[in-house]
Structure formats: structure tokens, C-alpha cells
């Protein structure tokens, strides 16, 4: 091999190594960039999916809040109108005392409540009992001794007991209604209107809501 050939061989080998190194570096760089691009695309897809889920959750939260507000609004209307019905009923009591209700005088209404209270106490079992009726100052005028005697006689007969019913000197603070109690104070039935409303409030409220909001 001549000198020129040796020189040429060294040059061409050096050039070949140069090109190999450059090409390898370019190839590696290209491969890395492709991997990074793929990884970034994948990450982007995951982030977008997560953001979509968050977006849907936020939208659903807003809708849930709106529905809750709607339920609250309906409940507030029910409360407001039920309260109006109760207030109107309490205001009507005075008119009922004067003119009666559905063909019944206020005296008859009181008599019915006294009868119910007396029956409840009579059902407790004693053979004889002395009961008294408590009224508001305003309602005393609607009751008389003969009516109480009539009620006592009827229940005595019906229940086979001996009952005495009298009007107490004690007065109650109430819009109306009665309290019937044994004179020894051991049993008492409170039929004042306020107490009856409190007792029936839950069930009555449901009935009132049904009545108020049924479309006829």
C-alpha cells in the first residue's frame, strides 16, 4: 500500500466515523423527540379527560343546587300558605262563637269536646268520678249547669259509671275549647284549641298541604 493510499484510507475512515457519530446523534435526538411528543399527547389526553370530568361534576353541582333551591321554594310556599290557613282559622273562632260552624252552635261544639274529654276519663275505669270543666272567661257564657248534667247522665248511662260534671271556678287562658279533669287532678284532658292544634299539627299540616295544593 502506497503512502497516498494510506492517507486516503485514514481520511475516509475519519470521515466515516464523523458521519456515523452525527447520524447516530441525529437519530437519537429524533427518537427522543418522538417519544416526548407521544408522552405529551398522552398526558394532554389524560388532563383533558380529567378536566371534562371536573367540568361535568361542577355542572351537576350547579344543577343540584338549583334543584335544592326549587325544593326549598316549594317548601316555603307550603309553609307560608299553611300558616295562613292556621291564622285564618284562629281568626274565624270569634265568628264561630257568634254564628256557629257548619250548622253547629259554639255551645254544641263545646259540648262535643266536653263529651269526648269526659268519655276519655270515664274509660280509665273508676266506677264513680267527679269531673270539672275549665273554660276561658269568654266561653263561660256558652255553658250551663243543665248541659253539663245532660252530658254526665248520658256518659254515665253509656259507660255504666256514675259521673258528676261541674264547671270549675278556675279559668284558662285560651282562644276557646275546654279542659276536662278529675277533681283530684289526677287525670286531665286538654281540649283547648291551642293544645288540639299542637297535638294534631304534624298530621294536620299534611292534610292542609294536600287540601291547599290539590287542583280541583
Amino acid at each position, binding site marked *: 500500500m502506497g503512502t497516498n493510499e494510506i*492517507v486516503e484510507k*485514514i481520511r475516509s475512515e*475519519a*470521515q466515516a*466515523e*464523523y458521519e456515523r*457519530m*452525527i447520524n447516530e*446523534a441525529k437519530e*437519537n*435526538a*429524533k427518537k*427522543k*423527540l418522538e417519544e*416526548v411528543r407521544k408522552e*405529551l399527547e398522552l*398526558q*394532554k389526553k389524560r*388532563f*383533558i379527560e380529567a*378536566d371534562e370530568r*371536573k*367540568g*361535568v361534576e*361542577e*355542572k*351537576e353541582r*350547579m*344543577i343540584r*343546587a*338549583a334543584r335544592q*333551591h*326549587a325544593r326549598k*321554594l*316549594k317548601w*316555603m*310556599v307550603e309553609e307560608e*300558605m*299553611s300558616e295562613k*290557613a292556621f291564622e*285564618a*282559622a284562629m281568626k*274565624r273562632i270569634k265568628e*264561630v262563637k257568634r254564628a256557629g*260552624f257548619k250548622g*253547629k252552635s259554639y255551645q254544641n*261544639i263545646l259540648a*262535643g*269536646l266536653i263529651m*269526648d274529654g269526659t268519655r276519655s276519663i270515664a274509660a280509665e275505669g273508676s266506677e264513680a268520678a267527679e269531673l270539672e270543666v275549665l273554660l276561658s272567661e269568654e266561653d263561660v257564657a256558652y255553658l250551663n249547669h243543665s248541659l253539663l248534667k245532660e252530658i254526665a247522665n248520658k256518659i254515665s248511662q253509656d259507660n255504666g259509671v256514675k259521673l258528676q260534671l261541674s264547671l270549675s271556678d278556675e279559668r284558662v287562658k285560651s282562644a276557646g*275549647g275546654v279542659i276536662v279533669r278529675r277533681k283530684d287532678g289526677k287525670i286531665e284532658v286538654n281540649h283547648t284549641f291551642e293544645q288540639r*292544634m299542637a297535638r*294534631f299539627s304534624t298530621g294536620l299540616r299534611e*292534610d*292542609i298541604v294536600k*287540601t*291547599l*295544593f*290539590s287542583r*280541583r
Partner: protein
Amino acid sequence: MVVEALKLIREVEEEGRKRLEEAKESVARILKAADEEMMGLTEKAREEVKRIAAEIAARYAKEGEREAEMIKKAAEAEAGKLKATAASNLEIAVNLVLEKMFGLR
């Protein structure tokens, strides 16, 4: 003659070493440029994701607001109707309360 030949060969070998040095430098430049491009791509992707996230959030918030508004309006209209129905049934409800109060029911 031989001495000159050896000198030439040494010179060419030196050229070859320089060429390899150049290659190493080029490789370093290529890899650095690739790294910078990768960082650029990452930054660009981050900004794109941020922009898309904002668009998605705004789109769903708008949809949510629209549907919530519809529900609210429907509820207000329904409340108005309920009040009107209740007002027309008030007398019946008052009688119901009185019947229960007076022990007639």
C-alpha cells in the same frame, strides 16, 4: 522519502483526530438542540392544556348556569301557580283546620 511519507501520515492522522473532535462538538450541539426543542414542546403542551382546561371549565359552567337558571325559573313559575291554587283552596283548608280543632273530624 520515507520520512516525508511518515510526516504526511501523521498530519492526516491529526486531521482525523480534529474531525472526530468536530463530530463530538456537533453531537453535543444536536443533543442540546433536541433538549431545547423538548423543553419548548413541554412548555407549549402545558400552555395548551391550561387553555383547554379553561375552555372546558367555562363551557360546563355556562351549561350549568343555563340549566340552573331554567330550573330556577320553572320553580318560580311553579311557586306562583302553587300560591294561586292554595289561595283558591284556602277556605276549604281553613274549614279543615276548624273541623279538626272543634273535634268534628
